[in-house]
């Protein structure tokens, strides 16, 4: 294809613009990584832009040396996996049902779901409900309350509605029931939305800090986010704002500051979930039902 000079210039500028934009997005993260591998006191002099000036792993050691970090990771990974899988399964089942016009009481259920989008229970009633359900200080407080989300149901429902009715009808003619159609027709055709919503749910679980803060006091049940916040608080109170209690010339003190711990903490929190993104990326861009109907 021959493109004109003007188009070439436009493309060039386009690439330049997108490159600059990408850099603006990526650079802050990269700087965080660089600072997390740099000695804390040295970082305080400023001037670290791309690479660590005084390399150290001490910031990460401070985080990973704790005995409770394994518990916290287990809780976080556990709730992310269990919570996301259960949530996606239940939400998609509900949405699949609601996408069918033949479902009785569909409007009432929709209305009930919509109400939850506009009005929340409030902190105290929610606490009382969790208490009566025995969810306080339990692992399931991370999972059960987040199983259903009205917005996710509606997104799934819209997606299922867009699936060709002929597919379902042909499956029904072959003797499939609703669950079979859901599992063997709707699910495979809806992988992009499952992946997207699964990722949203997983990120939500991974980042959630409030559940543990409000409803959990058992220390062996706190997730990674809460533990990292604790480490940050501790470092801040004990080292940074040390009010002169710190022996600054001792080797252990030079490398770790609240700021450097914060940077390492950000990396520890963000990296695992960032690693998942590339594997799900293809689902975001893939066509939904291209080629599903032939002949």
């Amino acid at each position, binding site marked *: 294809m021959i493109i004109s000079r003007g188009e070439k210039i436009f493309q060039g500028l386009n690439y330049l613009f997108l490159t600059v934009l990408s850099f603006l997005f990526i650079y802050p993260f990269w700087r965080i990584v660089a600072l997390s591998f740099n000695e804390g006191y040295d970082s305080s*002099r400023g001037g670290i832009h791309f690479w660590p000036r005084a390399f150290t792993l001490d910031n990460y050691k401070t985080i990973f040396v704790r005995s409770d970090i394994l518990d916290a990771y287990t809780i976080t990974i556990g709730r992310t996996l269990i919570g996301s899988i259960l949530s996606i399964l239940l939400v998609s089942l509900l949405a699949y049902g609601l996408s069918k016009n033949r479902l009785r009481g569909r409007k009432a259920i929709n209305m009930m779901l919509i109400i939850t989008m506009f009005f929340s229970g409030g*902190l105290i009633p929610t606490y009382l409900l969790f208490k009566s359900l025995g969810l306080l200080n339990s692992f399931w407080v991370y999972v059960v309350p987040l199983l259903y989300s009205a917005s996710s149901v509606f997104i799934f429902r819209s997606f299922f509605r867009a699936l060709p009715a002929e597919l379902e009808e042909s499956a029904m003619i072959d003797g499939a029931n609703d669950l079979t159609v859901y599992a063997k027709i709707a699910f495979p055709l809806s992988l992009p939305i499952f992946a997207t919503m699964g990722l949203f749910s997983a990120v939500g679980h991974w980042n959630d800090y409030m559940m543990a803060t409000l409803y959990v006091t058992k*220390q062996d049940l706190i997730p990674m986010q809460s533990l990292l916040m604790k480490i940050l608080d501790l470092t801040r109170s*004990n080292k940074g704002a040390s009010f*002169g209690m710190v022996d600054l010339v*001792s080797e252990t003190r030079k490398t770790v500051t609240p700021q450097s711990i914060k940077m390492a903490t950000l990396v520890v929190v963000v990296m695992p979930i960032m690693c998942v993104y590339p594997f799900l990326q293809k689902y975001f861009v893939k066509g939904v039902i291209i080629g599903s109907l032939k002949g």
Partner: protein
Amino acid sequence: MRKRWKAISLVLVIGLMTTALMACSNNKEKAASPSSSSSSSSAPESSAPAKEDPLVVNMLLIGATEIPQENNPMRQWLLENKNIDIRLTMSNGEVADQMNMMLAGGDVPDVVRYVTNEVSNSILNKWGDAGLIVPLDEWLEKYPNLLKFSDKSYNKSVYANKKDGKMYVLPVNFANHPDVIKKVVGFFVKEDWLKQVGMEAPTTPDELFNVLMAFKEKIADVDGKPIIPATFDHLGRQSFMYTWTKNWYNLSEDHKELYWWFNHPQIEEYMVFMNKLYNNGLLDREFLTQQPDQYQAKLSSGRVGFTFNTHGPMDMANGVLKAGDANNRYVPSVPIRIEGLPMPIHGAANYNGFEGIAISKKFAENGRNLERLMEFLNWNATDEGALLLQNGVEGEYYVKNAEGLFEPKPEVKAELDKGDKSFEMSTGITAYNLLKFNVVPSVTVEPGTEEFKLAQSAWAEGLAVDDNLFNPAGTGPEWDKHWGNLWPEIDKWQAKAVFAKTEEEARKITKEMLEHFKKIGAPEVTEEKLRLIDEYLKK
């Protein structure tokens, strides 16, 4: 057949009623009071000398950041020697939310220690109103040591329940007490630069000007970058202003006149002095706009001659500088004073409690529980108890040095120096010092850097004891309406006045500022505060 059913029903009803009555009579057992406790406790002691079961105390620390490992030596020691098993849990969320949720749930752990402030104290008193916790007045009277670092009138105005006047909280307020407060904020000057220019640390604005001029003229660039004779962050410039305004508020002795730092008659002289520094190239051009990282980078690169701050950023800067040259450091400098004006207050001790302890009614229903817990707390309040709970059993972690002061063993010091509290968390030391009391005067070697120790004398003058009047008097609707608007205005006017080209212009701008503050609520806020103070005094 019918008669048989009737008989069975009758027996069942009587049985149920008897059970219910017995249960009710058990529940009627009241919480112990100090006067009744001696008789109730002496009976079992005389008849049954056998040791009681350990007192199990489930204690929740709201707002804490760390609790010790579950099985730690100190908990074991307390179990064996004090027959008490303190099981600590913590929640580190928003204190008010946590307390409100417990209030709504009607369920409070045996003992709670919470971070005190106006909101949390009010919620705690609602716990008292709801009957979730017990009043402690009689116990506080029986064990006066528990409040030995407190001020009774302050406690009454701040903590006591407004409805029934009872104290449901045992305020834990040691760290800010006048006897032990550390001097943590003040001026810093670059020591090696002072030596280079052959001058003493400044004590007045004129001396400061001369020192900064000498820095500007005689100190070479640092790493190719020009030096900054003086810089301040937000805390610094506000505190430097106190040289002229005394503090962020200035209440006259007779409580009839009140000025804020932004509308103080002396504020003009501050503006003029800052303008003089600026126009002579002695003041950092970014002093109003710099971010914390920028400010820290200037300090840590050793380019600043004079500033004001806490030890935190200065420690960090000194850490970097001293690594290269032990003489390259910032040292605390005395307050800058003006003859005829009051001593600026850069830090104030007060009786405010950082934390408070409350005891649940459920726990206190067994009178002996409350009695034993209060006995333990009273032991905690003694020098013996505080020392042991804070430092562990003598000889185990801390030993007496030649001067008779306790200091950590070298291996313990190495652990403590890690600064991650892992030692405290594994041993349990400090954690069970529920009152957070220490021994006054101190019997331990005080930790701290050389600069920190220097500051204890250099900044001593700038530390005052807060009057017990201004804060407890509270605020009103005028404050709520205007304060948020007043606060940011000062920086705008400061920028105009300090960056003015001449002294006359700076004075003119400051006068305009004073007029402006009159229009945006300063008189209303002042009048309201004076009225509240007056009402508070009449109470």
